[in-house]
């Protein structure tokens, strides 16, 4: 550690939606620094108007997402000593979202998708304080609730990264995780399967696991959230035995109604 170089050289994307370019900065560096420290030092010494989002600098808030040497990561959790000494490191904004300025992108897509998901709805006959849940029954939802909304999974998902036109009908891995957290909540009574199948566009996902690989919270997005949701959809809508049973019994598979989203209200 002590032989870390005393200088860091970083090539940072600077610009706005109308265009930009990489600028290279060399600044003094100290032992133990992370990429975000170097960005802050560039602001303090070289480029005071360099735009970047950050808050906690401890991997808890998910604000400082970027692409570092082309890999989606949190700047606050990427140590400088993971690169070769003297290596010029490239930092660019997340590609999937529109540029605002420099490393800051317009992530309002995610907030719009969040509003389409109906909230947790417990059985109204169970009063506060009467809830009983075993740890083993909340473990799975708790894994999903670790999500810090860094949107790195959204950024990496090829369904929307390279296909702007898919954004309308696809919520993305972050919201599959959110939907799975609700579906697997022991006390939720809402039914969101129709939403998951149609508006959230789960079918677009062909389980390449890119989202799981970039998750800084190590949530097993594909295995634990997406695949179980796909299985539920299959069972509910495409199981041939269930289809025959429904034909005979006269049941309908329609599950809309409770799952309809409420109208958006936020200005983002």
């Amino acid at each position, binding site marked *: *550690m002590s032989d870390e170089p005393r200088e860091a050289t970083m090539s940072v994307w600077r610009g*706005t939606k109308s265009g930009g370019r990489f600028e290279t900065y060399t600044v003094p560096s*100290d*032992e*133990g*620094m*992370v990429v975000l*420290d170097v960005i802050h030092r560039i*602001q*303090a*010494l070289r480029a*005071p*108007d360099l*735009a*970047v*989002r*950050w*808050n*906690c*600098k*401890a*991997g*808890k*808030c998910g*604000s400082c997402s970027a692409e570092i040497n082309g890999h989606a990561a949190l700047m606050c*959790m990427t*140590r400088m000593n993971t690169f070769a000494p003297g290596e010029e490191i490239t930092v660019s904004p997340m590609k999937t979202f529109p540029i*605002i*300025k420099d490393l*800051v992108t317009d*992530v309002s897509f995610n907030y719009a998708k*969040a*509003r389409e998901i*109906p*909230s*947790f709805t*417990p059985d109204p006959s169970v009063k*506060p*304080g009467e*809830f*009983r*849940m*075993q*740890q083993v029954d*909340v473990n799975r*939802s*708790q894994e999903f*609730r*670790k*999500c*810090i*909304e860094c949107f790195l999974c959204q950024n990496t998902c090829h369904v929307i990264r390279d296909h702007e036109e898919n954004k309308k009908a696809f919520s993305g891995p972050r919201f599959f995780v959110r939907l799975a957290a*609700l579906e697997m*909540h022991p006390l*939720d009574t809402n039914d969101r399967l129709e939403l998951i199948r149609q508006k959230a566009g789960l079918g677009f996902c062909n389980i390449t696991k890119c989202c799981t690989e970039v998750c800084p919270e190590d949530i097993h997005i594909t295995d634990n959230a997406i695949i179980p949701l796909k299985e539920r959809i299959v069972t509910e809508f495409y199981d041939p035995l269930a289809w025959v049973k429904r034909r005979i019994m006269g049941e309908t598979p329609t599950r809309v109604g409770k799952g309809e989203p*409420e109208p958006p*209200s*936020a*200005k*983002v």
Partner: protein
Amino acid sequence: MDLMSREGLERHDYDVVVVGAGGAGLRAAIEASAAGAHTALICKSLLGKAHTVMAEGGIAAALGNVWAEDNWRVHFRDTMRGGKLLNNWRMAQLHAQEAPDRVLELEEWGALFDRTKDGLILQRDFGGHRYARLAHVGDRTGLEMIRTLQQHAVHKGIDVYMECTLQRLLTDGGKIAGAFGYWRESGKFVLFGARAVVLATGGVGKAWKVTSNSWEYTGDGIAMALDAGADLIDMEMVQFHPTAMVWPLSVRGILVTEGVRGDGGTLKNSQGKRFMFDYIPEFFRADTADSEREADAWYEDKRNNRRTPDLLPRDEVARAINTEVKAGRGTPHGGVYLDIASRRPADYIKKRLPSMYHQFKELADVDITTTPMEVGPTLHYIMGGVRVDAETAASTVPGLYAAGEVAAGMHGANRLGGNSLSDLLVFGRRAGAAAAAYAGGAVAGTVDDAQVEQAARTMLAPFEAEGGENPYALHAELQECMQDLVGIIRREDELKQAIAKLDELSGRLERVTVEGNRQFNPGWHLALDLHSMFTVAKACARSALMRTESRGGHTREDYPKADPEWGKKNVVTRKHGGTLELGAEPLPQPPEELRQLVLSEEKQPA
């Protein structure tokens, strides 16, 4: 032509404007909206990134799920004693009484806390709490709380304005009429007409060098309230959390949850000694274990053992660490050891403290299941702030409310861990309800164009100034000054030096110059935030000079004892004609029954 008509000012009108979208702001907005008020929620960052997200250990509430003996009276007593009796007793009472309902309400809104074997909300031990009291989710409780509130709020018809920074409260005849600020993205100004404003803006940690706080913590709400004519109290009372990372330097100050000690970790000096046994103050002696055997037995058996001194209130532990390091018994990087590796199994540590495990592994190459952590104090919280009415969270300015860290009184001279998240919920809800009720009966004030014009000119000045002062450099000097001269241990000469230095630095702030344009310009944002930080730093240093005693988060080397007379007084700060005026005013005293409860000695173990 004036600036505003040239630029074309964006304006929105609301019954209630809530400033800040952490736990208190979200809870206030939910309540105001539920009461029928047309409500806006305004935050400096993206929704869900507020400082609440960083809270780790838990929410203190006397649910009695783990220890049936627990109830609001015990919680109230712990809170008052932790605050060295400088608390607003009525706030402490309401908080202890209402916290359980607020936690259960979170569960009703979808929060998933860790569970007991009976399927109830599990509670963990924390500093200064008699019983295991903190509802939690591993060590990411704040994230659970903010997501729950956020996901509940977005369906309630609240308008959310993200990345929007407010700079001024606007008044009409001394009453709230609105607020004025700018969009971070475009740099354009925005005006909110409001019958009532709820401040939920948090604290001011960024005025210190070593802090657990994020960039947002610049004291905006405290400064805006002061400028609008509100009283501040207890501004000398700041909390240094005893345990933060000390190494590598770039992560110095990042929080290490008290939950490490709550779950069995212990503090040791470089000689391997559990030094907290040497620092048990008289005030807590009857409640605190005096042997390692008793301290370790307490985790499992609270009826027959007293609390480990590792879990004394934060002010006591921070001072003890400071003393050990100064005496040469610190670690190579200037901290002390926090050891849970030798005391609990690796699986237990990873399950209970996942983000601590992750944080040390990723940022310091330390495996906390095999190696002790190096930790030291970090500026964490300000107990002082806007003076409020206990029942309504109303400030001394009609139409202005404050809840959470920006408000004062609840925690007295020192806050207990876990009492912050519960404070946000209890008083966020009360503030939202009271603001909505006030707005329902208030006539909308008239926004004074001159106030807006003057604020806009001040905010744009850094683009035109030619003084060449760099905002980042000025900020670094402010942080050095507060860290060195208004830190854990204070003295008259150093405080006077700090006040002189702050005057000099704020003179230079007039000449601060920013480069670039108004679009998402962090240099400009910092230049504006510095105004709030300087205002609050001055109030803190001057209050610290005035209080000639040691109590809680305020330790004077030249007045090392608590003074019973000062124990009955708040230091009050007001702004009059552009200058700060300080005074000492009587602290409201609790009714006799509650006073006896607080002063009573705990039952000795059988």
